[in-house]
């Protein structure tokens, strides 16, 4: 599997480590309440189809990358830098 790192170009997935769904970028405010924090910490969608998740280019540029991919076809649709914010 290859991931198109926005900084380094198409790179092998072995250079990256996986964290989880891109919703981890939407950290609730401290006072957002138990339900919001429970959601943020524990609940994830597990879609059959297009999803966005976070990969860190550890053995590369150290960028965190939001990868849009299809869990059914394994297709990598796009990738952008996490620091550019949520879509």
């Amino acid at each position, binding site marked *: 599997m290859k991931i198109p790192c926005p900084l380094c170009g198409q790179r092998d997935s072995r250079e990256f480590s996986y964290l989880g769904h891109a919703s981890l970028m939407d950290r609730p405010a401290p006072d957002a309440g138990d339900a919001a924090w429970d959601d943020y910490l524990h609940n994830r969608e597990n879609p059959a189809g297009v999803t966005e998740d976070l990969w860190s280019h550890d053995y590369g540029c*150290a960028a965190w990358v939001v990868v849009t991919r299809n869990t059914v076809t*394994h297709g990598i649709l796009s990738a952008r830098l996490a620091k550019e914010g949520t879509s």
Partner: protein
Amino acid sequence: MRVEGKGHAIDRTEKLSFQFDGKTIGGFAGDTLASALLANDVRLVGRSFKYHRARGIVSMGSEEPNALVTLKRGAAVVPNARATMQPIYQNLVAHSQNAWPSRSFDLLAANDLISPFLGAGFYYKTFMWPQSFWEKVYEPVIRRAAGLGALVPTYDGARFEKADAHCDVLVIGAGPAGLMAALTLGQAGLDVILADEHDAVGGQLLLETQTLDGLAGPAWAEEMATHLASMPNVRVMLNTTVTGAYDQGDFGALQRHGLDQAEPVHTLPEETFWRISTRRAVLCAGAQERHIAFPDNDRPGVMMAGAVRGYLNKFGVAAGQRVAVFANNDSAHQTALDLAAAGQSVTVLDSRSDAAAQGDYELLAGAQVVGTSGRQGLRKITFTQDGNTRSLACDCLGVSGGWNPMVHLTCHMNGRPTWDEDIASFVPTPGSIPGMVTAGSCGGLMETSAVLADGVNVAAAVAKDLGAVAPTPPIPATDARPTGLEPLWHVPGHGRGWLDFQNDVTTKDVQQAAQENFRSVEHMKRYTTQGMAPDQGKMSNVLALAVLADATGRGIPETGTTTFRPPYVPVSIAALGAGAHGKGFAPERFTTSHAATVARKAPLIEAGFWYRPSYFPQPGERTWRDSCDREVAMVRSAVGVCDVSTLGKIDIQGPDAGAFLDLVYTGRFSTLKVGKVKYGLMLREDGFVLDDGTTACLGENHFLMTTTTAAAGQVMRHLEFVHQCLRPDFNVSFASVTEQWAQFAVAGPKSRAVLDAVLDAPVTNKAFPVMGCGDFSVGGQNARLFRISFSGEHAYELAVPARFGAAVFDALLAAAEQQGGGPYGMEALNVLRIEKGFITHAEIDGRVTAGDLGMGKMVAVSKDCIGKTASARPGLNDPDRAQLVGLKPVGAVKKILAGAHLFNAGDDVHRTTDQGHVTSACFSPTLDSTLALGFLKNGRARIGETVVMVEHLNDLHVQVEVCDPVFFDPDGGRLRD
């Protein structure tokens, strides 16, 4: 038997001899083991897996199910080598498999006599009762009987390799389609890899007498090879089997090297596992002939019709004295034509009643073979024709049930092939693998001229797609050969019709599976084990599901196929794991003091990939404890030096560095003054402790964070996550400088004297108090000094650029030895920190909170931090949670062991009564007692209580007193003085 005038692949002037089952046999250079055995009329080459039936060579390629042998190559023993893929060399040593005591007299062949009881599912039905028999009788017996070949349990030192290759287009298979495709793509200027699993290009052309542009097939292929070799952008990889198609244009391939060499060649690995990364792929895998399941079709001498003529044309080997051909199609008649041209008399039995002879040989139209006989090899076949049953003497029967396109790779990403009525087989479904197209007979084309043209046309479309357009090469002229076919899958009769030769699956097994309602093709496969052997059903799949379709009354397309999975051929674990051996598996990281440490004979202990000294033995010390106790006393009474470079160091800079640290640490760092160090606790977002360490403020907007050795990488990634994913607005950046700075702890009452001997200017206690830091110089070079202590002593850590580490370590040791001190290792470091109640990852194991550690107050109230909200959850603040405590033995037994659990005195020892556990323990020479740290339910409120430590491995029940985790110098006076 050799035939004169045939055999373009062999060199009759170079004779070779080799051993098969201890018998010396001759062959020629260019022979495979299979061709040489056939040339010497060795027909029985092994025994089948379950019934131990006599089996002979069936095919010419990697699909060979029977002729699997064990090779002895130097010190290496290679099981399951395909005799069809192994060239012979002088003094090659091969053994047949699955036969004991010998291949012609095999005791387990008795299995065949009781075969009615060993049919499909017999494992599930037979070995059920009594239950106790499973472990003692059934399993050991099955294990002895099961498996193909045997591994040698010792490491043979053979070298394997993994490698990467990149190209624009990967062409898989160098038959007529693959050669034309590679030529077309090469001429378009694209980077091409052409991979073929055989040792020469040409594919089926090497086995046929067909001519191209007036040249014999092999000669044409050789010209193509020369032409392609002259193109710098085309790389031909022979002996290379593409084993799998993976995501985004990645392909796995196994290349075998030095196969014709008697000993492993030092400059070559045995095998290379390639990862080929390509923009496009053209699959030209060709087609394989399939069998017909007639009774006793597994007798040695029964072969594929194409293989019979292939052995003749390529190796000059007649597979029998008297050959018959049984087929349902036109292509098999070519076997008769080729044999007749070589002067052999042949009879063709064609199941089609309207079959016509294509030349001068005997044809029995509308005939079906219903039986074979001959012990250890074919002597006679029985057949029916026009309702009569007759027999025919022959010692070789070439069979052809048609040709199956090799669709395997197109199915590796869950693609399903499509049934093609015209050729009565499956063809690839377009688009099954993104970026891969198929060409030639693997796409269902069976005429050579069409295959050649398809290679060009498909490749031209690929080239165009990649923006490379060039004139296409002309398509070679070739003679047309008929390809008519009428499906015939199995012939009923007395005796079993074999489908899967490797796993001994017959038509009866498949029919029985259907009868017992294992009607889905995937269920049938698992119930009968058809297609589950190392050959993955290459020869048997289509046949087996045709029989299943018949038995269930469904059509073949509705029945479908089982899933083809990678690898296409077995790949040795040694190739897949190449490089991950010894240091390749676990790389070594050494500190700058490593050489000095080794010179002092310190045993090393692994910390991740780092190697650190355990202790520094002195003459007269008999155990590690002697050295450790001395080193602890040395630090407490004089001074010790310890390399702490393995701790993670992260340089943090930027206007928002302070604010960023406030977010990742529980405490406030934005107010830390330049020249000061502060201890920090880092939480995960779920409220549990991630790591701890000190962070120094080196300058305005410039911090240096230290992490534990174990968590250095994890913390670095965490910081990047928090910055890039949560607070990209922060102007801050990080660099790991762990390897750039060598850092040494100098600890003990005389540490300042040691530093003064090494630093260019002395340190004063007043100007450089506890938790101070600053720039110093050593020998005119920049150095950093930190007044921090992990031992509770007056201590410093001195950091110098790594290139000076070795020299500075030596200088510190020399100065320390002048003060009655010396180096100390991890054992002493551990004792020193337990005496002081300092934590490591033994304590922060991912399940503890700041509150559990007694550091709840470190979570600053006035600001947010990662993990703060979650750490306020009621469950994480339950007073009944286990809290960090100190433990001391108070009874007769003085031993405390890490990992042991704690119970209330008098309670049953049971998980429900568990009160906590011990995380770290040591003998403290300072306090002359065993000391331990651990977690105890509501522990801080239970100081002074006695609980029981239970350790089942050593059957220990020890009374321990709960105490404060800081055992030594609780007010910290030694630190400051």
